[in-house]
C-alpha cells in the first residue's frame, strides 16, 4: 500500500508509529479479515463507546471485513456510532440525522464521475433510529433508485445515547428508560422492506458469528458495485439501555437467535447470485 499511502521521505523520522504501522501492517490491500483480528493494525482501536457495546464490536468486525478499505468511504449519521467514527482511520462523513442514504447516493455518483477508473465503495453505517425511523424515506428511496451503495444498520433496538427511547426496531413490549410503559407495536421488518424495495442483496446477521457477518458485508459491497443496492442489518445489543452486564453481549445475541426474536437471514437476487458464483469460481481458479 506504499503506493497509495506514502509518507514524504523528509518526514519519515517524525511520523508517529501508529501511522507507520497502519501503512506497514494495516488492513489495506484487502487481504485481511475477521479471522486475522489481533494480527494487524485495525482501523478502529480506542473509542468512547460503553463497555460491552454490541455496536462497537459489530463496527470492529465490519471494518475488518471491508474488501477495499483504502477506497471505501463510510457515511454515518447521528447516534452512538457517530462517537466512534471520528476515531476510525477510514474516510467517513457524518451526515445530518436521517440524511445518510441521500448523502451517500450523491457521493457515489460524484466519485464515479471523479474516479471513473477506480472502484470506490460507499458504505452507509448508521443506527436503527437513523435507518428505520428518521431516515427511512431517504433509505428506501435510495433502494428504489437502485443506488450503488451498501446500507448497514447497527441495530441496538433503541435511541441509546439520548437516554433510551424506543425505536421502530425495538421489540414489542420493550421497556426502556424513556419508554416505561413498553412499546406498543412490533419490530419493523427492514430486511423484508429492503428486499421488496429491490435490493440485490439483503442480510440480517449478528456479531456472534463473525465469519457470517464478514461474508454478508463483503457480499453486500460486491453486489452494490455490480448489481444494485444492498442492505445488511447487524443486531448489536446495548447493555447500557437494556440493562445487562457488558460481558453478556454475545450471550444476549445468541439467546435472541435461539428464541427466534432475531432471525439471521439472507435474500439474494438472481443477478447477485450469478455474480457471487462467478467470483467464487475465479477465487477457486
Amino acid at each position, binding site marked *: 500500500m506504499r503506493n497509495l*499511502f*506514502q*509518507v*514524504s*521521505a*523528509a*518526514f519519515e523520522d*517524525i*511520523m*508517529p508509529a501508529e*501511522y507507520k504501522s497502519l501503512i506497514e501492517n494495516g488492513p489495506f490491500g484487502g487481504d485481511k479479515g475477521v479471522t486475522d483480528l489481533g494480527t494487524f493494525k485495525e482501523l478502529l482501536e*480506542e*473509542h*468512547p463507546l460503553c463497555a460491552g457495546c454490541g455496536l462497537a464490536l459489530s463496527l470492529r468486525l465490519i471494518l475488518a471485513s471491508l474488501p477495499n478499505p483504502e477506497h471505501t468511504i463510510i457515511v454515518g449519521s447521528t447516534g452512538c456510532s457517530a462517537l466512534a467514527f*471520528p*476515531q*476510525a*482511520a477510514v474516510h467517513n462523513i457524518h451526515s445530518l440525522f436521517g440524511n445518510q442514504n441521500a448523502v451517500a447516493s450523491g457521493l457515489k455518483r460524484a466519485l464515479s464521475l471523479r474516479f471513473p477508473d477506480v472502484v470506490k465503495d460507499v458504505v452507509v453505517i448508521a443506527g436503527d433510529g437513523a435507518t428505520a425511523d428518521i431516515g427511512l424515506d431517504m433509505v428506501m428511496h435510495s433502494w428504489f433508485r437502485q443506488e450503488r451503495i451498501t446500507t448497514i444498520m447497527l441495530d441496538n433496538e433503541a435511541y441509546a445515547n439520548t437516554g433510551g427511547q424506543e425505536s421502530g426496531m425495538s421489540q414489542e413490549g420493550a421497556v426502556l428508560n424513556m419508554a416505561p410503559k413498553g412499546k406498543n407495536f412490533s419490530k419493523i421488518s427492514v430486511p423484508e422492506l429492503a428486499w421488496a424495495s429491490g435490493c440485490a442483496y439483503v442480510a440480517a446477521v449478528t456479531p456472534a458469528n463473525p465469519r457470517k457477518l464478514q461474508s454478508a458485508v463483503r457480499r453486500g459491497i460486491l453486489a452494490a458495485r455490480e448489481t444494485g443496492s444492498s442492505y445488511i442489518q447487524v443486531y448489536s445489543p446495548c447493555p447500557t439501555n437494556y440493562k445487562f452486564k457488558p460481558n453478556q453481549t454475545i450471550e444476549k445475541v445468541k439467546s435472541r437467535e435461539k428464541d427466534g426474536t432475531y432471525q439471521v437471514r439472507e435474500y439474494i437476487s438472481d443477478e447477485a447470485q450469478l455474480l457471487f458464483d462467478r467470483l467464487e469460481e475465479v477465487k477457486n481458479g
Partner: protein
Amino acid sequence: MLTKRYEVQKGPEGYLPPAAAMMGIVPSEPGTSLVEGQMVLQETAMEKVADALLQAKNPVFFPGPLILWAWKEGVEEKAQAIKELADAAGAKIIPMPDYRPKYPMINPEIEINPNHPNLTIWHNNIDVCLFVGVHCHYANIALKLIRGGTDCYTIALCAEAGHEDAMISLRDVGLDQIRQITEIVKKRKETQK
C-alpha cells in the same frame, strides 16, 4: 461598527476568540501577505518569518497531511524544502498526520491535532509555531484556538489564499518561496555571528 483596527496578536485572547475575518481582517492580495492583520509585501513578510523563527526560544513546525503524505507529484520536494527550512531555523518538527479528534487524547509529545492544538503547545512550551500543509478549514480552527488559549506566535505558509488567523500569513507558497525564506534565515544567522 469597529472603531479600532483589529490586530492579530499572540494570545491568550480568552475562550472563544473571534475569527480574524469577523473582525475585518481580509485575505491578502496575490503577491502580498498579512503580518498581524496588516497587508504587506510578501518579501517583508518573509523577513518577519525569519525574525520570528530565529528569535524564538522553541520554534516548532507543524506540517499537515498535505505535505506529510506524498500524495501527489511535487510534495516530496516541498517536504524536503520545509525540512531544510526547519533545520536552518533550528526548529523542531511535530506532525499533524490527520484531523481525527483522537480518543482519549493525542500524545502531545509527538503530534498535534487541530481540535486541541493547545495540548501540544503547552506540553512542549512552544513560543513560535509554523503551519504548513494543513487543509484550510482545520488550519483556521487550530490557529484561532491557539490564539485563544496560548501565547504562541503563529505563522502560516499556505499554498492557497492564506490564513487571517495567523499572526504572519503567506499565501501562494510554493517551493521557490520556501527556499527563499530558508535563504533569508541562513543570511540572518550569518550576520548574527
